[in-house]
């Protein structure tokens, strides 16, 4: 901000700025963005929601009632179970009834009936299946559990009798991080290519712009399909995971690179860039130190808006059987088990992971929208 050379002499008794004004003028750009974002209620709600989601990632074993791969052969395709509080009119605290299973001989569908004589209390922070916390030390504490002999399938079970809630919580780990890793890849690519293109211009710029145009004119899905078909089937699931994130990132970077280029083209003409050049700063230094900071906020906005794209991309790939595969569990992998009309008609709870996908994608979009409004605090 330019300061007038001659300040009007303030009257002796009245201060130049009110405390609020002073606070505003002294605030950093990031503080201003934060203040603006805070006024955007939908964006803030999404922000806390996402923070909560990402917050559970380290603790999935503790939060999920069962382990990822525990099968309950007696409870296959078990519908979501109701937690009750009153038994025959008397308050009992949270509990579940036991169940008996019969097979309907006409439809061969398993039918479960509540057995009201059996009562199992729902316990909080209770001992359950053993697991290794962060792979380091053994633990058997779970946030919720049920008395010995009872079952607690809040969102039902799948075709092997595995608890859907636990699987959705575990799937969050993969589904949520895939966007972050992917966005890192595409950020790096966008900064390098967009930077080269925008700062140097000329032939290099033309070549890179052509390349971007080519990638953009490919329908993404066939490109994803082709690239992930190229991942060797005998790779370790973890390697496949990184392969998929890199594929998603490699295809996603073009939009970001375009905006980097556009900004750089405009900014390199500014006086401060010329000044830095004359003082002998190297191009990477100028880009990093002088040019990038002035549009980091815009980059963050674009990043936020492309993460949901990647999450949806992963679901689509996994659904086609070209993405992640069991034993890795992501929301896409879970949904690929709900892909026949049977699941929709008979076992609709298998589609529940989609609720998480939709909520996450919506939250990222709303947050990105709010950030876009807030990104330019001087406007």
């Amino acid at each position, binding site marked *: 901000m330019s300061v007038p050379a001659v300040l009007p002499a303030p009257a002796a008794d009245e201060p130049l700025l009110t405390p609020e004004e002073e606070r505003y003028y002294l605030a950093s750009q990031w503080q201003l963005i934060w203040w603006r974002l805070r006024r955007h209620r939908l964006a803030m709600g999404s922000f806390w929601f996402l923070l909560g989601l990402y917050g559970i990632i380290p603790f999935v074993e503790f939060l999920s009632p069962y382990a990822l791969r525990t099968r309950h052969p007696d409870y296959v395709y078990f519908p979501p179970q109701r937690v009750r509080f009153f038994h025959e009119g008397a308050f009992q605290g949270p509990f579940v009834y036991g169940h008996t299973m019969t097979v309907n001989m006409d439809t061969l569908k398993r039918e479960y009936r509540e057995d009201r004589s059996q009562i199992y209390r729902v316990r909080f922070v209770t001992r359950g299946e053993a697991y290794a916390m962060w792979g380091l030390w053994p633990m058997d504490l779970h946030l919720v559990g049920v008395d010995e002999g009872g079952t607690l399938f809040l969102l039902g079970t799948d075709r092997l009798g595995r608890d859907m809630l636990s699987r959705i919580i575990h799937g969050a780990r993969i589904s949520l991080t895939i966007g972050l890793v992917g966005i890192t890849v595409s950020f790096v690519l966008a900064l390098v290519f967009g930077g080269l293109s925008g700062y140097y211009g000329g032939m290099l710029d033309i070549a890179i712009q052509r*390349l971007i145009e080519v990638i953009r*004119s*490919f329908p993404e*899905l*066939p490109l994803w399909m082709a690239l992930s078909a*190229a991942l*060797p089937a005998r790779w370790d699931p973890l390697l496949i995971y990184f392969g998929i994130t890199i594929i998603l990132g490699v295809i996603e970077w073009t939009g970001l690179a375009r905006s980097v280029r556009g900004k750089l083209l405009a900014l390199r003409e500014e006086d401060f860039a010329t000044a830095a050049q004359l003082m002998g700063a190297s191009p990477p230094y100028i880009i990093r130190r002088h040019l990038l900071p002035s549009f980091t906020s815009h980059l963050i906005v674009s990043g936020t808006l492309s993460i949901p794209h990647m999450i949806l991309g992963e679901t689509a790939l996994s*659904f086609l059987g070209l993405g992640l595969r069991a034993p890795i569990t992501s929301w896409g992998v879970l949904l690929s088990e709900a*892909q026949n009309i049977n699941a929709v008609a008979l076992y609709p709870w298998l589609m529940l992971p989609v609720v998480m996908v*939709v909520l996450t994608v919506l939250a990222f979009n709303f947050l990105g929208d709010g950030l876009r409004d807030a990104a330019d605090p001087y406007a």
Partner: protein
Amino acid sequence: MLRYSIQRLLLMIPTLLLISIVTFVIIELPPGDYLETLVSELQATGERADLQKIEFLRKQYGLDQPVAVRYWVWVTGLLEGDLGYSFEYDRPVSEIIGERLMLTFVVSFAAVVFTWVVAFPIGVYSATHQYSWGDHGLTFLGFLGLATPNFLLALVLMFISFSWFGVSVGGLFSPDMEEAPWGWAKVADLLTHLWIPVVVIGTSGTAGMIRRLRANLLDELRKQYVVTARAKGLSPGRLLVKYPLRIAVNPFVSDIGNLLPQVISGAIIVSIVLSLPTTGPMLLRALRTQDMYLAGSFLMLLALLTVVGVFLSDLALAALDPRIRQGAGGTR
């Protein structure tokens, strides 16, 4: 205008060349080739593979040649309209994909039209009624369409139409129409089946379109000339249609470049779920079995569809907006 069109047309040549290279690299990426897939499949079923025949086939299709030679053969073939030979179907690629490509085009085109028809009124309404309940509600609905994975929406719609209307919606035709020759009856049959894939594919792009039209129109509505026109007593409806809308509608035309790849991607996944006779299922299978010429020519034609679509939208944009026509080489 003519100069601009020619310029734009010439620009397509290097783009298409690059696309062909990228396509070829992609289909060459997986280790092994179709014949190896074939051998392992034969072995898996317990049959003995005739090594001599395999060797013969390998020579016949030039699979023993270096990559550059194969690329050259493929690309020059493409220029002459020869799309190559499918190993799996044992027929020329052009014979297999002709009708499928046409149907893909029909579905994609319908989806783009759907997106426009839905997004346009909603966008205009949202901008003129900013922050009203209608604006929030419709925007939210648009986002919901964006956030729901296509394949799941397709499944649910399929279930609904089956259980409520009793119509089975797999495919694009009724069973008795499948083999029928083209005629009005068949077109009508196609239309009754078309709506599900079109709705499913269309919803994912609608939100973006609404947002952009709304943002652009809002920018225009805040400008001085709108105030002036209003002060002079122009009726709100006429004012809107005559000035701001004409400027704000640009992205609608130019955005087809972004919309088209998205629509074709959507069409592929939806056609796999609904088992439509379009390119999707066949491309997926071709990629898996490394039926490379089939997959490659498919990818190439889909990309061509996009490039031509973008070209047409650029022309339309130039016709609409003199600023682009006169400024050498438009910017998207």
